[in-house]
């Protein structure tokens, strides 16, 4: 009896695996697909960074502005292309439909990464960074909680211009550090590179067709821009 029950349980497990993808009804519970993926897939993914050769090949294949996303915590990287402009905001999308929105190089939103940054209040901070001026600015981030309620995180940021740095050969800018603290959240600091002419950091970093954005600051900021539960 015990053996029979065990055999049936094994049969059940096998069937769940076999049935996970059966059907043409998109509305069926995705939980089975997720269970299938966690049992039988996902383990063979590698997290190796994108090589410079791959970046070069990508740049050669498109005229669109390109950014390189890196989330240190997840050890993952992706290449994103500019897919839309709305005022000063630029939306970059990856081939698998993840998106990041930048305003003059500052991340104002992410989508599809999990724990997405929904929007920010960045005017005051961006003004100081772009002017390469020292000062204090208020900065607000909005996230969705797992309950789907908007959570507003308010920071006070101290902006400090630092030394001149070379982004790529022939392209340089001033590093401007924004150290932000909050009464309820962990502190974080971003470093932006603002070009010598006072132009926006994105343009500085993107100067020259073969040296389009390798946006270290964007990648660093992205870690802070996705909320980890």
């Amino acid at each position, binding site marked *: 009896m015990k053996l029979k029950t065990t055999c049936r349980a094994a049969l059940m497990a096998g069937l769940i695996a076999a049935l996970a993808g059966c059907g043409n*009804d998109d*509305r*069926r519970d995705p939980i089975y697909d997720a269970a299938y993926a966690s049992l039988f897939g996902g383990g063979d993914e590698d997290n190796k960074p994108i*090589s410079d050769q791959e970046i070069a090949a990508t740049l050669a294949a498109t005229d669109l502005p390109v950014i390189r996303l890196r989330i240190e915590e997840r050890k993952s990287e992706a290449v994103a292309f500019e897919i839309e402009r*709305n005022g000063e905001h630029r939306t970059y999308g990856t*081939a*698998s*439909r993840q998106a990041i929105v930048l305003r003059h190089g500052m991340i104002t939103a992410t989508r599809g990464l*999990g724990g997405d940054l929904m929007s920010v209040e960045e005017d005051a901070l961006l003004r100081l960074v772009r002017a390469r001026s020292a000062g204090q600015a208020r900065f607000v981030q909005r996230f969705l909680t797992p309950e*789907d309620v908007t959570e507003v995180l308010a920071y006070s940021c101290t902006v400090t211009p630092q030394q001149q740095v070379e982004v790529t050969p022939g392209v340089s800018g001033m590093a401007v550090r924004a150290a932000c603290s909050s009464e309820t959240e962990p502190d974080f600091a971003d470093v932006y590179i603002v070009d010598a002419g006072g132009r926006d950091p994105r343009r500085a970093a993107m100067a020259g067709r073969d040296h389009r954005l390798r946006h270290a600051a964007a990648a660093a900021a992205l870690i802070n821009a996705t909320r980890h539960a």
Partner: protein
Amino acid sequence: MARRAGIAALLAGATALAGAAYPETVPSYNLYGLPGLVDMPDANMSPDATLGLTYGRMGTANRGSVSFQIAPRLVGTFRYTGIGSFDHRASVDGVYYDRSFDLRFQLLTEGTWRPSVVVGLQDFIGTGIYSAEYIVATKTITPGLQVTGGLGWGRMASYNGFGGFGTRSEEILDEGGKPTTDRWFRGDIAPFGGVAWSPDDRLTFKLEYSSDQYDLERENSTFEHNSPINVGMDYRFKGGSQLSLYYAYGSTIGAQYTYTMNPKTLGVPGGVETAPLPIKPRTGAEARDLGWISELAATEATTQTRLARSLKREKLELEGFRLEPHRATLRLRNETYGATSQAVGRAARSMSRIMPGSVEEFVIIPSENGVPASAITLRRSDLEALENEAATEMLVRTRFDEAPADTPKMDLEDYPKFLWSLAPYYGYATFDPDGPLRLDLGVSLRGTIEFTPNIVLSGSLNKKIVGNLDDVTRESESKLPRVRTDYAEYAREADPKIPRLTLGLYGKPAPQLYSRLTLGYLEPMYAGASAELLWKPVDSRFALGAEINYVERRDFDMLFGLQGNETTDPVTGITRSFPHVNGHVSAYYDIGNGYNAQLDVGRYIAGDTGATVTLTREFANGWRIGAFATKTDISAKDFGEGSFDKGLIFTIPVSIGTGQPSRNDSTLTIRSVQRDGGAKLAIDDRLYERIRENHEPDVAASWGRFWR
């Protein structure tokens, strides 16, 4: 290739976030499944909405419980207990099974000098075996060190009590289920207290003085009470669950496992679904360009085709469309996104990329089962200006109306549509003394034919593979027609089975009025016809509904046969019949802050008349936790164990487990006892829940998802 791997890793990382909890402090739980020391309560409260599941054993007693932090200051508990070697006429094989409910309210929150003060009712609606009341205070002296003291009544005044007010019955009630108000805060009073010390985040040591002498267990069982002092230790695992070990009453050891979760913090914040399309802003010239109007019909056709294609990529469906020089109206079907706001947001983004420049107004009409449920009007220039602003900016500029009379007609190109799937299923039965939890697992073949979106034939065929539901052998007498208590017969004889096979017709006979007609095998035990009418204004928190059913009992094999509405009691042999017609008038009210109330008044399946009150707390992400109680004209004696029908409802959205958007959920109804009084049909496509998801209060509650 590497890029794909990298992106998959991004997603894998995001998925790994699922299940993580915010580091809000959940207090230690005691053997009764509530915040406390070892056996005594303390005055701690869990974070709002915490759901705590505990299983503990002390001596010969097993206690399992579910606690829910109903509000920041109010917690409720349901407990199922089995006491071994218990000499009582209701014991089964020497084990006395009992269900009990507790409520606890925080009178004072903790301040700099003031302790937290809580008043509690324990087993206030059951047989009374655990009946007690208490007032308890807890103060944090230094971080990690808490002192608790309180006064108990009833069971919690059985050791070293002193005279209180009035006298108190200690009888174990046979039927239970009624509030034992004649006992509350009566009889002796006794002090209790203790200390809890947490040297770090993982460990807590507890010492308590208990005022419970375990009189009933000492008299009827083998329990020994040698000391009022109990000691315990909790270990808190990384995920938040707790393992507790106790030495209690100088005679016995105990152990307990506690698992807590919170609908507010469980899951991936914002989900892991792909990014939406960006809004495509227009230039001034594009917005003024009306040149396309000369070919309005042709442009409408091509625009519709492009929009339908774009929506399909968003897993949405264009059900109807109309284009005017300054307005586009989309009849939208959403079977993907749990939040209507997200479906509407994605549709609006698609429209911004496809509509001719002069179109300034987007009217999106969510269609539910082919029925226009509301009209959500957005200005395109607002979408362009506010894409990167707080979502509330867009909400205040959004208009919610009734779906207009000239809603675009359904475009039925892809119909009839046949959908099928093969998936696992489970069935369960709880609280049978011979097996407190029974489970069946098997495969379910499900099929749906949508002749049109509002005429739907659907059904499923289930085949069990493994399980023990059919082991139920207990037969209990019922004084009513056996409209539900024959569930064991169904469990034994139905395999394979057709739980449901129905033709559903949905309509909107008048503004604010929605209708449903369901024909066929309505639920596992009944077949027939069910008609429902719902009145629900789009901006209202109030709704009224009426449902009338004509049913006949299905054969025990749950296939196509019917057996008439006569039942024979296996214990007494008495045959009783019940009417074909039952139904209810229902009132629904959205109280606000996620609390909802429902009142159903009418005739139940067995022919009894009465009312059901349901109170639920709902969360924007789809979680729903509630309780219901039904009182009909059946006396408590005729109803049998439990006195009246009552239970708890837990609805868990599928998206919590996957991080992917879904309108599917899983509902678990736990009844303390399944009897025949107050029984309603288990129809699964009632109107209210689906219609209101498209109305202003619900859409606004999850509006944060509009830009997601």
